[in-house]
């Protein structure tokens, strides 16, 4: 039987990788994926806890997270399409109008 | 030796099953293509394949050899990963989707009890949907990777179409789930068992024995339409619409990779037919009441005359090869029928699978029939139909069913 710690550590690693991708990717869509990766890491921790405690609440929250992620994807990708149309680029470093 | 078997049975039995399944599936696919060509040919008043082997029975074999031997050119500027991944993905997922399907009741043999089918997951329906959900990537990737406008358009179209119809597909099943209250296909089938009403117990009609049932005809219609769209078959075969997109997403594929797409498509057809059979048509259950025991001899009653007819037809065949082969086949069939007639135990084992495959065959024939008769949708019509008609109707079915169940509860 696998101890909960393993799962938690794994989720921590995945989360860190997600953060790395979040900081290092230049493509908006990829950055978005990084966010999804972090969400998944959190989900893993949720499930691990809920199974360890023998309560299903954690899994319910995973479901909620997934729903939210879906909604987020819908809206976020819509925004991305708009920016891509207007700025002719997906590189976040080329979309820098928000400054002095 | 035996204890070795006993020790590693959990590993060996599935492996054997997988082997059988893969072989069976490939064969069935192959002969499905033959059947398709024949049927369509007759629909169009042609002969269809009849050169390779008697009645073109060896045509699939020839096709297979051709696929293997043909040169496999790779267009310039393709995305290698995607280009290679796509066909494998398609085929693998298609075949895997069959792994959770129970083709019949559990088998009791040599003191072991094992399920008729590879895996017996208690959420097998969800697993099935999960696998089909991943099926999109094969098409989409193929379209994108092969660096070709037609392919890209085909891929985009098909991914859009598959996402759209997946919703309807899933929702149309919810009615059945509500009634059966279980996600395991096996339990869903067992639930539809109705000793003295036979086929009325099927979810299609919904007079289950001692539970709240409700006719799922609407659900079935939605399910079947959505399923056709999911498998990209006529009249929803826009991704590979020859007239507009050459061959759609697999324009750039040749020989074995193309074969993979081909097999994948037919396999998913089979899978979907199995699903329809299980969910709405009582899976392996006989349509007749249980106490009509004489119906158990139906297999033999079908097989023996058919075999005799094949022999009769074979001996008058033009080619010598045919005159040898066909009688042989006919003799085998007759023998099997006789054996079933003589050994009731074997007959009982065969009952479930017999009905199951019979129903599946009907569906497959329906597929072919439609391909022979129906024209293709226009893209906007397709989308409108999916979102504005199919989805609402299936949701309505859910509401209707749950309302009925509530009423039954009180």
């Amino acid at each position, binding site marked *: 039987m*696998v101890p909960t710690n*393993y*799962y938690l550590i794994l989720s921590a690693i*995945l989360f860190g990788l997600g*953060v790395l991708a979040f900081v290092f990717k230049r493509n908006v*869509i990829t950055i978005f994926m990084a966010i999804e990766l972090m969400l998944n890491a959190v989900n*893993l921790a949720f499930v691990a*806890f809920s199974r360890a405690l023998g309560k299903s609440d954690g899994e319910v929250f995973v479901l909620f997270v997934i729903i939210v992620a879906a909604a987020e994807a819908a809206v976020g990708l819509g925004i991305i399409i708009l920016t891509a149309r207007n700025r002719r680029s997906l590189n976040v470093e080329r979309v820098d109008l928000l400054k002095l | 030796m035996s204890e070795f078997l006993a020790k590693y049975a959990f590993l060996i039995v599935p492996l054997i099953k997988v082997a059988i399944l893969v072989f069976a599936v490939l064969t069935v696919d192959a002969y499905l293509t033959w059947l398709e060509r024949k049927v369509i040919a007759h629909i169009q008043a042609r002969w269809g394949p009849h050169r390779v082997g008697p009645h073109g029975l060896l045509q699939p074999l020839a096709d297979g050899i051709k696929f293997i031997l043909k040169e496999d050119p790779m267009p310039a500027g393709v995305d290698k990963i995607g280009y290679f991944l796509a066909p494998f993905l398609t085929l693998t997922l298609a075949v895997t989707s069959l792994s959770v399907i129970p083709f019949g009741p559990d088998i009791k043999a040599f003191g072991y009890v094992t399920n008729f089918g590879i895996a017996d997951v208690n959420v097998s329906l969800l697993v099935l949907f999960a696998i089909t959900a991943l099926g*999109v990537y094969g098409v*989409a990737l193929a379209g994108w990777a092969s660096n070709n406008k037609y392919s890209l358009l085909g891929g985009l179209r098909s991914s859009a179409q598959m996402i759209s119809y997946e919703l309807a597909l899933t929702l149309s099943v919810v009615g059945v789930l509500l009634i059966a209250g279980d996600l395991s296909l096996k339990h869903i089938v067992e639930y539809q068992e109705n000793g003295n009403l036979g086929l009325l117990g099927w979810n299609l009609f919904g007079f289950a024995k001692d539970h709240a049932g409700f006719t799922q005809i609407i659900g079935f219609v939605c399910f079947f339409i959505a399923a056709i769209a999911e498998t990209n078959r006529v009249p929803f075969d826009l991704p590979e619409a020859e007239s507009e997109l050459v061959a759609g997403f697999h324009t750039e594929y040749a020989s074995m990779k193309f074969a993979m797409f081909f097999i994948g498509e037919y396999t998913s057809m089979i899978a979907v037919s199995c699903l329809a059979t299980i969910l709405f048509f009582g899976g392996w259950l006989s349509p007749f009441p249980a106490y009509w025991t004489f119906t158990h001899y139906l297999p033999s009653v079908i097989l023996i005359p058919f075999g005799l007819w094949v022999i009769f037809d074979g001996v008058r065949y033009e080619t010598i090869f045919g005159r040898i082969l066909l009688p042989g086949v006919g003799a085998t069939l007759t023998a099997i029928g006789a054996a079933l007639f003589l050994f009731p135990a074997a007959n009982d084992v065969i009952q479930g699978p017999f009905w199951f495959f019979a129903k599946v065959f009907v569906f497959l024939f329906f597929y072919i029939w439609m391909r022979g008769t129906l024209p293709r949708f226009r893209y906007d019509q397709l989308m409108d139909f999916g979102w504005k008609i199919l989805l609402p109707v299936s949701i309505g079915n859910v509401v209707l069913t749950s309302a009925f169940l509530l009423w039954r509860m009180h």
Partner: protein
Amino acid sequence: MTASVIIFFVLAALAVLASVSLILQRHPIHSALSLIVVMVALAGLYLLMGAEFVAAVQIIVYGGAVMVLFVFVIMLLNAGEEERTNFSKLATFGGIPLALALSGMIAAGIARSSSQLATSPATAEGAISSTRQLSMLLFKDFVYPFELTSFLILIAILGAIVLAQREN
């Protein structure tokens, strides 16, 4: 070193490698594919923990819908390889250490958190009935949040439509 542990390590390695490749791949499609692999691996882990419903949902929704959407958008925008611009000094030099610090912090927190929970096996006792439990929770205790999420989805759909349609 039982079978489950072996499976765990296989899947974990798969997930980690895939996420690394998500970072290293230059083409968004490849990143997307790697992310899908991560998700499938995670689904396997869920199955390993006996949370089969969550696993199925993970694949259906994430793999079958969300990621398809990503791939679809990437194809639609015909996104090419990303150009490795380095306009942000902060990200270039501060990125790795900060990310490491963050994940290290989380790991340390886990390592220091209460031990008996940490070492107890993460596997359900009633795996078979867990789907039923889940639905009970979802539609009894958490029914209001659940309905709220449906509203959220609705709003998201409207927003997406409004955003994506061209002005005319």
